[in-house]
Each structure stands twice: as structure tokens, then as C-alpha cells.
């Protein structure tokens, strides 16, 4: 560092540099420059690893759902849930109420429409047994952790997107219907929001970004603009 600031004080080095790379100006010591760039790159990569790998690992707490739910099993046509298409079978449990509001994650009474008898399980999985013992027999709601819970100030109308916009569920939620195991719920320790809202990558760099990767305001606005719905980017369309 001292050398580079005062090039006149180091005659031996500057001679060596000029013989190796003739076209570099005299004041630039190429050895020192290469060293500096190298140190910078090492520092940058170390900082990126800390920022993009270590920090998210510390920031997000990993929690498992109170019990597992096999979406693939329930959405398959031979289990007996009403509906021609897969979307319709999704909407059997994740239903719209008569006034157009969305029920979200179903309550226990939706489950007990089929799993009504705690004594006789419909299948033979250990999860169902656990579910019947812990929740159905006592009439206790399952304390699900909700992956896509938005902040208080956000308004979202499912029916506007599903019925009017003709989007399918997996456009925004990812292909949940093929999951045999519920993913780990990751909660931001500072804000309390799920990683599905903040985005799976803290860097914000996605190769081929899908709506299911992130659910922030910019992502909503980006899709509205892409779909030719710029008028829905007004504040009160999504805020309350």
C-alpha cells in the first residue's frame, strides 16, 4: 500500500514491472494491482458467502408443521374427493365461501367430513392414526403454520385471481399438489414473516423466476403489469 502511494521510492520494483508488461503506465505496479484485485475478490466472495448463505441460515428459524399432510394422496382421483380436474379437487378443501372470501387452510370440520370416526382410519398410514388420536378424537384444531401469510396491511382476493383472472393455484403457490411431505416452515426471526413471502433467495437473484419464489409487492405489481392489469397497481387494490 505504501509502495503504491509513492512510486518514486521503489526503483527496483518499477523496473521489473516495466520489463514484464511494457504497455502499462509507469505509475501502475502490475504486481501490486494483481494482488489488490485478488484480495478484493477473496473478500467479496467471503462477504457473499456470509451474506447469502450464513446470514439466511441464522435469520430464518426452521419449524416443522404439527403433523404431515400428504397432498399427493388426497388430490389423486381415486381417493374419492369430488372434482373433475385437479384444480377442482384443490378447491374442495381450499374452498371459496358463498360471499367470495377464501377459506385458506381448511379447519378441522372439513377433515372430519371424511375422517369422521376416530376409531376407524380410512387408510393405513401412521400419520392418519396420529391425526385421529390427537385432533379428531379431542375435536382440536391443527395449529398449521401458514407459508403465505401476508402482513396485516395487505389485502388479497383469491377469487379475483382464480375465477376472474383464471390463474391456477400452483402459479403462485408452487406445485403443492404433488407434495408427499409438507415443506419446512421458515420464519424470519426479525419480522416474523415466512420465507415464502420474503423470497427463497436473499440475494434476489433467480435464474428463471417463478411467482412462487417470492410474494412481495414488486412481484405482484410485476405480474399485474405483465398481464395488462396496470390499473390494479393502485395502492388500495392490495392494501387495506
Amino acid at each position: 500500500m505504501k509502495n503504491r502511494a509513492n512510486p518514486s521510492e521503489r526503483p527496483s520494483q518499477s523496473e521489473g514491472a516495466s520489463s514484464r508488461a511494457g504497455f502499462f503506465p509507469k505509475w501502475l505496479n502490475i504486481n501490486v494491482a494483481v494482488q489488490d484485485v485478488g484480495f478484493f475478490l477473496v473478500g467479496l466472495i467471503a462477504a457473499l458467502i456470509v451474506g447469502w448463505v450464513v446470514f439466511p441460515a441464522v435469520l430464518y428459524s426452521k419449524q416443522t408443521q404439527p403433523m404431515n399432510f400428504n397432498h399427493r394422496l388426497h388430490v389423486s382421483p381415486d381417493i374419492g374427493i369430488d372434482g373433475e380436474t385437479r384444480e377442482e379437487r384443490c378447491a374442495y378443501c381450499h374452498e371459496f365461501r358463498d360471499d367470495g372470501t377464501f377459506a385458506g387452510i381448511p379447519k378441522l370440520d372439513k377433515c372430519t367430513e371424511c375422517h369422521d370416526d376416530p376409531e376407524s382410519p380410512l387408510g393405513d398410514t401412521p400419520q392418519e392414526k396420529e391425526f385421529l388420536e390427537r385432533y379428531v378424537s379431542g375435536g382440536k384444531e391443527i395449529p398449521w403454520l401458514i407459508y403465505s401469510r401476508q402482513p396485516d396491511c395487505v389485502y388479497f382476493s383469491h377469487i379475483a385471481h382464480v375465477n376472474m383472472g383464471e390463474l391456477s393455484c400452483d402459479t403462485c403457490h408452487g406445485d403443492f399438489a404433488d407434495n408427499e411431505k409438507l415443506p419446512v416452515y421458515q420464519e424470519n426471526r426479525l419480522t416474523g414473516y415466512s420465507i415464502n413471502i420474503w423470497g427463497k433467495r436473499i440475494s434476489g437473484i433467480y435464474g428463471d423466476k417463478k411467482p412462487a419464489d417470492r410474494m412481495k409487492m414488486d412481484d405482484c405489481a410485476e405480474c399485474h403489469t405483465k398481464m395488462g392489469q396496470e390499473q390494479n397497481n393502485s395502492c388500495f387494490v392490495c392494501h387495506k
Partner: protein
Amino acid sequence: MKKENDNGKPRHRYGMVIDLDKCTGCGTCMIACAAENNVSVRPDQSDKERAITWMRLYKITNGKEFPDTEVSYFPRPCMHCDHHPPCVSVCVATATKLDFNTGIVSQIYTRCIGCRYCQAACPYGARYFNWWDAYFPKDKGLDRYLSPEVSPRMRGVVEKCTFCHHRLMRAKEQAYAEGRREIEEHEYQTACTEACPVQAITFGDLNNPDHKVSKLVKHPFTFRLLERLGTEPKVYYYSSRDWVRKLGDNFLPGEYKPVLHKTWMQEEWSTKPGRDTY
């Protein structure tokens, strides 16, 4: 005024007509508004400098001596100015915006930085600042009235009347569930409109000729507050009394021209005075 948005779809312009002849000053609109929109209370609610009332009731008199004294009350929500709302143009955080499709001046509370420029810019005093965090005394049961459809405001942000925007969203969801895209007049009414015991408030789409408001605003008795500022408020007032209409703006002496004089009285509409004509 443009009647279509950029996509060529018809735009709405929600507005309100308040009949000052009917208003008795009971204050039900203020209470209904506060309950509907999670407006917090203060331990000392009588401190009117700090208390938040989206819908505020003013009392005006004609200033005459006893036998001629007349009093009128007028409720003042946000005017939802249609032409360059002063609060929007001064907002440094772009936290408030005129929604061109509904004509409602909207605000994102979480984006507001609390500089209170909008409060200073609003000529109607319709904006209120949260000096403290929202307060809903638990022992009084006020927290049980909180509506999940309106987000409570935090300390340090400005808030104002939203024309009960969540009711519009609720009506839209209902319409979508029934396969409609447009909503009916009666499906979207603000809380103050519904609560008013004498039905002095009429609410609807000013751009829709079928809605009652769009007919009422053509009446010569309707006026707007500080109309000559050019902010085009969407809240109209109706009064058959000249002194009330005169107080709606800052007129120079002799500048105000009374609506009601002989030639008007001879017109056919004025033989059946009031709103029933329309």
C-alpha cells in the same frame, strides 16, 4: 373529465352527496366511521387537537341575533379530490395516490414516513396524524370491535377517510363469486351512509347515470367546499339555505350570487323543491 382509464375500460368516480337540510348533527356517522375503520381512541378523547375522527362534524351558524338565528351541521369526510389532490402531490414517500379507477385517494400506512406534509396541504383538514400507537382499551371491550378488514395504523403515520374501501373490495368479491364483474349501487355503501338515521348521506358512482348521486349533483342547491381551489372534491353538499351555501367558500363581499331568486322559483323544478324532483 375523462371517463375511461388507460385501458379504455369505464372508470368509476365514487362520490357522496350530504344533505345539510336533513342532517341533525347527531354524530352517528362519526361513531359508525370510527367503529368500522378501527379508528383508535385516546384516553382523553375530548382533546380535539389530537383525537382522530375521519368523519368530523362541524357546526355553523348564520351569525344573526336570536329570532333569526339558524344553525346547521355539516359532516366532513375526506373530499377525495379528483383533480391533483393537494395531499398526493406533496407526499414525499409516494404513500398516497389517487386511484384513477375508483376516484378514491388511497394511502399505504406502512409506506408513510410521518412528515405530515399532506396534513398541511389538505385544505379541508381531513388528514390526521397518529401521535401515539393505536389504543383500544381492553377492559372496555373495544378490542373486540376491531375489524380484520382494515389494518390498524401505527404511531407516526397519517390516516384519513378511505370511503370504506374494504367494503368495495367485499362487494367485488361477492360479485366475482356470482360471476359478475361490476357491482350494483347498493352493494357498496360507506358505513356513514348506512348509519345516518335521517339518510342525509347518499353515496354512489358519479360517473354512472343510474346512480342517485349523479342526479343529485346536478341540482342547483348542491355545492362543494372551497370549490374554486380547483381540486374537484367528490363530496357534495346539498342545502336549500343560501347562507349555508355561502359558507362553503371564501367569497368577497357581494361576490356570492344567491341561487334562489324569483326566476328560479318560477321554474318548474322549484315548485317541488328538494331532492324529490330528481
